[in-house]
């Protein structure tokens, strides 16, 4: 039985079209709508989730390739909104419409898991796959810097 684990819960994918992008499995079959649809071509980053801890664009990953993996969505980033990035986002009032933000947060979390002390240039490189049409980039960058400092100080991951 082929399955995908999402936020530590197992879901069978046997009944689904193996070509179905992971994004639609997450949104419609599992019913978690925090992961967003923005472009369908891996260009905008709104669909970013973690696959075995790495940020990937779920709109461009078929279920057949996702089977057997551990997926984390925005709903699984923390139990209660307490991830240092989520805290920073609220402190700095980062979101405007907020539609791109789950993807931004998941991508940023992936960056911080790899690089505990990113420079502004590192952040630009890591985050330029995530589009924000409301233009919150400056605050996203500040949020990442704030969260990384917080995480280094408290030893939190």
């Amino acid at each position, binding site marked *: 039985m082929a399955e995908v684990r999402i936020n530590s819960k197992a879901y069978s994918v046997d009944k689904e*079209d193996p*070509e*179905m*992008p992971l994004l*639609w499995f997450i*949104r*419609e*079959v599992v019913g*978690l*709508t*925090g*992961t*967003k*649809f*923005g*472009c*369908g*071509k891996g*260009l*905008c980053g*709104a669909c970013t989730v973690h696959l075995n801890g790495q940020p990937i664009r779920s709109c461009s990953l078929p279920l057949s390739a996702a089977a057997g993996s551990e997926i984390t*969505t*925005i*709903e699984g*980033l*923390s139990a209660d*909104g307490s991830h240092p990035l*989520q805290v920073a*986002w*609220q402190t700095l*009032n*980062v*979101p*405007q*419409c*907020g*539609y*791109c*933000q*789950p993807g931004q*947060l998941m991508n940023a979390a992936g960056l911080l898991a790899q690089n505990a002390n990113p420079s502004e240039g590192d*952040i*630009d*490189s890591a*985050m*330029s*796959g*995530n*589009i*924000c*049409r*409301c*233009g*919150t*980039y*400056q*605050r*996203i*960058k500040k949020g990442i810097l704030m969260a990384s400092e917080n995480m280094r100080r408290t030893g939190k991951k």
Partner: protein
Amino acid sequence: MSRVANKINRRNFLQQSIVFSGSSLVLCYANDLLFPPVLHAAETKQKSSSFKPNVFIEIPSSGKINLICHRSEMGQGARTSMVMLLAEELEVDWQDINIVQGGADASYGDQNTDGSTSVRLNYMALRKAGASARSMLVQAAANRWNVKPADCYAKASKVFSKTGAALTYNELAAEAAKLPVPTNVALKEKSEFQVIGKDKELVDAKAITAGKAMYGIDTKIPKMLVASLERSPSVGGKIKSVNSKATLQVKGVQKVVTLDAIPQPVNTNASVAVVANNYWAALKGREKLIVEWTPPKGAQESSSNYEKELTSALDQPGHAMRKEGNFQDGKKAAKVNVQKQYYTPYLVHAMMEPLACIAYVQRGRCEVWAPTQDPQRAQKAVADFLKIPAAKVQIHITLLGGGFGRKSQPDFILEAVALSQKLKAPVKIIWRREDEVKHGFYHAQAMQRIEAGLDANNNIAYWRHKTAFPTIQKVFNPKALTAADWELGMGCTDMPYDVKNIECLACDTPSSVRIGWLRSVCHVFHAFAVNSMMDELSAGAKMDPIEFRLKLLKRPTTEVKPDFADKPEFRFNSKRMARVMEEVRQFAKWQKGVAKGRGQGFANHYSFFSYVAMVVEASMAKDNKVVVHAVHCVADCGVVVNPDTVKAQLEGAVIFGLSLALHGKITLQNGVVVQSNFDDYPVVRMEEAPKIHIKLIDSDEIPTGIGEPGVPPVAPALCAAIQAAGGKRFTQLPLV
């Protein structure tokens, strides 16, 4: 009704009283239809023990205090600022508030969330609503304690007496509900504000960061089907043939249905709907659909011809929308003459949430869930389409993942309604990004020509501004060809400098695509041309561009009527413009030690009654790549309700303006849009984003717009910066 359609009737101001049968509300319209009504509860007793003095406040006998937001939230903070306005005068503890999103209902007044109007239109009305509710709660407490209301005060959801007794709003609700609503209540002075003027986190920020915020595209209702639509590639195309054999074999696909085009003012195109029980199946089914289209009659636009077509439009005499003095006299007096032509392309909105809508048509009624900016326009269009009363059409406004004006159009709602009607089932249509890019209501492309000259004293001797762009009015009237006075009033006829001999002319030009309004609308291209030409003239005068403009602002200007209002407090005030210009000059350290290879450029613009001045610092790299280093922006939008949100709107407007300056371009081939997604319609990403510095003027003036005013100065300031850095002066957008 959309704000645009309202403007066509804006001089028909009526005083109306409407009584809703079966409800306990009496509705009185204020002076004009644009301003929200003052609402009074009827004299008759309220049935429930809830206190509902107006449509914005509902206080039950226990539990949260319900405050209703009637405006659409698309990131501009409407759900926060509308509630702040109510809360200030109501004297309620923020923790006690439950925010309810109001649906389409004329009793709320204007719900058309565009034109940067939410705070401006509601600043007084919501404060009055909060104040009158508070005074009734105080009266109820005074009655209970047998004291005078003046001996009581309200604070943090309670009424207190001088002796220290206290009653909660919940406890007072039933008695307050029996009292008459006062017609006159005193409002706080600005110095007394506890809520207004202080930074407030957006009310949805926590849900957003937890992934729990629900947008139109996330909404679901039981038993709903999902559909993806294959639409006519060009406006007005018809279905010739449909082969759905392979589509129907895709697992999950239920039906393939055709939909007819719906004409103005809805403007949908013919389409084939692939209906399924899950979205992936609908998408997959649509890939296998084979549709032949009959293109519309008549010549179709191709962008390869644009320069020729638009230049010949500009060569027409045009329709004079402003004419003062004598152009020839001005030419005779001129010592410096400049003529430039400016081109700006079609743009698409590209908000992050593509369009989506759920509609459920049942016998004699309809329910809709949509991320709409204009719910009342949608309600009317649905009622007209289904031939049922508007009262039977319920429009639920979901959170919007961005709008920029696209979601004001009811097309995406009517498609879902028409489909639900055909299917006799609830259905959700989700647009692909390609659909949003190819089936837009585009920001009008524009070609402008400005001829201007300086006299011996470096005053503007003459100014002739011809502007050719397809008019938005075609959304409402298929025969419309000439731009409206209010379209030219967005940055063209209201140019604020002292010129005795001035002509502003609209030149007709058609379009093969639907034209709509995109964040700051015609200000985008008019501000580009006017600022660019003012820079040319300042160079001709050998003066600093800010100094040159200030000199001409200081002289008395011909009174120009801004669009959207005739009220004196909204007329252009040259002192307020001068102030933001002088402030940004200091803020940006204008021309004080700019690094080698970099340049600073200036632009200013007045739009939606607010004043913005901006300095952009940019450079051009060896490969002609533009690098934007910093943007300084000073804005005066009157009294600021939520300062951090206002700053965020300006930060966002800078990014939005840079996207259109650097990248945005929609082109057509035989009436069909060429672009499809973010690969061929690029937008600014984090790596291109400059450091943005915002300063807000602390003002006592009536609040004016801020969602849009930050956009128009960006492109001209950037072009000025590139020229200052040693590059050429661009007169066409986009730059890259």
